[in-house]
């Protein structure tokens, strides 16, 4: 029996074209999609069993349950979760992403030593990092509400908004984490950079915007404020959720301005578009850094 065929069966590897010794410039055809899927599958299998990811899901579930018990309804529980989502999701994603990058670096080098284009490998690693974190987030905030049978048709749009905003933040900050990992070889410096990015985007930025608004209160600031809002994915997520919640008490200053200027479907669309931009931009930058990096 042909040993390759037996190996294909036993190792569940799809049959592929044999490499020709003269073939150096052209890929003998393992499609990028197959490569990405293989790396993604292995990454998900690894990260989904990581104790920190499981703890993340558990913490979110406990918080959701506690807020549901306190508020007595799903919308109140979700309102209470707003700042948890805006603070915890970027923090966990960035710190875990950077730590995982450095922990798995030697295995990444082993994968890079295989005949794999770097951009395809990066896509597999990125999606493999983000997918379990998105799943942990989604499970954490959804499961308690489902168990209480609180996901009614009128709650569903709000819950979906939370899931979309949290997923978008996870995808964005996972790309930022991989960018930091590729740019900074020193584990401690990379961790410090991750914490700095989190602190600036979640805390410092709004303070800066409020200070600007106060200092230049005589000026018409609506348009510059719009620009500041789009310059921070956390503000964009806050705005998107705030527009859904219609809850001024939980707004940051930037969210309040966007609500006034772009209330309604248009604002929701633009903030969503901005979040997509904040996923794509760091992803492109991180993939380029990965492709050019000396390992």
């Amino acid at each position: 029996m042909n040993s390759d065929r037996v190996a294909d069966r036993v190792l569940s590897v799809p049959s592929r074209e044999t490499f020709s010794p003269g073939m150096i410039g052209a890929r003998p055809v393992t499609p990028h999609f197959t490569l990405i899927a293989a790396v993604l599958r292995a990454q998900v299998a690894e990260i989904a069993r990581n104790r920190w990811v499981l703890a993340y899901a558990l913490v979110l579930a406990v918080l959701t349950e506690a807020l549901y018990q306190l508020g007595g309804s799903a919308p109140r529980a979700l309102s209470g979760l707003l700042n948890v989502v805006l603070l915890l999701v970027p923090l966990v994603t960035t710190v875990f992403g950077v730590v995982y990058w450095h922990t798995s670096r030697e295995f990444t080098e082993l994968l890079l030593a295989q005949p794999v284009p770097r951009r395809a490998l990066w896509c597999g690693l990125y999606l493999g990092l983000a997918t379990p974190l998105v799943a942990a987030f989604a499970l954490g905030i959804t499961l308690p509400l489902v168990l209480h049978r609180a996901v009614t048709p009128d709650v569903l749009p709000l819950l979906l908004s939370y899931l979309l905003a949290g997923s978008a933040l996870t995808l964005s900050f996972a790309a930022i984490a991989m960018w930091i990992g590729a740019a900074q070889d020193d584990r401690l410096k990379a961790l410090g950079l991750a914490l700095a990015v989190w602190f600036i985007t979640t805390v410092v930025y709004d303070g800066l915007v409020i200070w600007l608004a106060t200092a230049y209160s005589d000026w018409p600031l609506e348009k510059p404020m719009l620009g500041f809002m789009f310059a921070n994915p956390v503000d964009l997520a806050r705005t998107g959720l705030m527009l859904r919640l219609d809850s001024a008490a939980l707004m940051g200053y930037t969210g309040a301005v966007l609500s006034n200027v772009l209330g309604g479907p248009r604002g929701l669309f633009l903030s969503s578009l901005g979040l997509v931009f904040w996923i794509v931009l760091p992803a492109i930058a991180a993939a380029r850094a990965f492709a050019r990096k000396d390992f």
Partner: protein
Amino acid sequence: MTAAPMLEVRRISKSFGRTAVLRDVSVALPAGCITAVIGPNGSGKTTLNKILLGLVRPNHGHVLLNHQQVTGSDTYRARIGYMPQAPRFPEHLAARDVLQLVSSLRPHAPHMTLEQLIDAFDLASFVSRPLGVCSGGQRQRVNAAVALIFEPDVLILDEPTAGLDPVSSASLKDRIIAERAKGRAILITSHVLSELEELADDIVFLLDGTVRYCGSQSALRASTGGLSLERSIGALMQSSSIAIAPDTHRTPLHGTRTDEAHV
């Protein structure tokens, strides 16, 4: 008939910031030959390995496979098997998962069934166990399997026997010798000079990022009066200039072989 494959770096230089790690280095790995790269820590061995694998891009110079330039390409790695030093596999994946993953990334399937692989590398007792709970020796066996199962033309082995028990170490060395007999070009880096003395045909001695000796082991040892490899290397490091007697028994390496040491 296809010419014997050979991996080569030609006039490679690499700096990290202001630190020059490799300077005008040329090394060739001929088919059917085990080449040992020796040098103290910081001499550039790891960087040389990584340049051969495309993990590090050289500032100057080229990587050639079978005389074709492959610098910046990724497909040529289908012909290379790489065994890194002390691998840190994902701790929740099993050996089976890792082998399956690597198989998915290669353009051709492994040349053994999983059962044959388990026998050949003695993986039976832990093939389905998470690698995080496996011993260093067990992980090293998986590492060897990853490098060897695709029958690559070139093998790059970084401290291949580190962490292995004597039986597994001897078995791996036998396998490396068998791979040489099949015509593979093999590069080994190791700090265990007695191991290299047993395995290596050729020696590349790196010091401060430059090649100080590139030639056969027998010529090197003959030049130092038949000393062991360890003492010959020691003599190389101490001596400012040692003339190595030309080795007339072997075909010179492609392009860059020196039968004289430049110290």
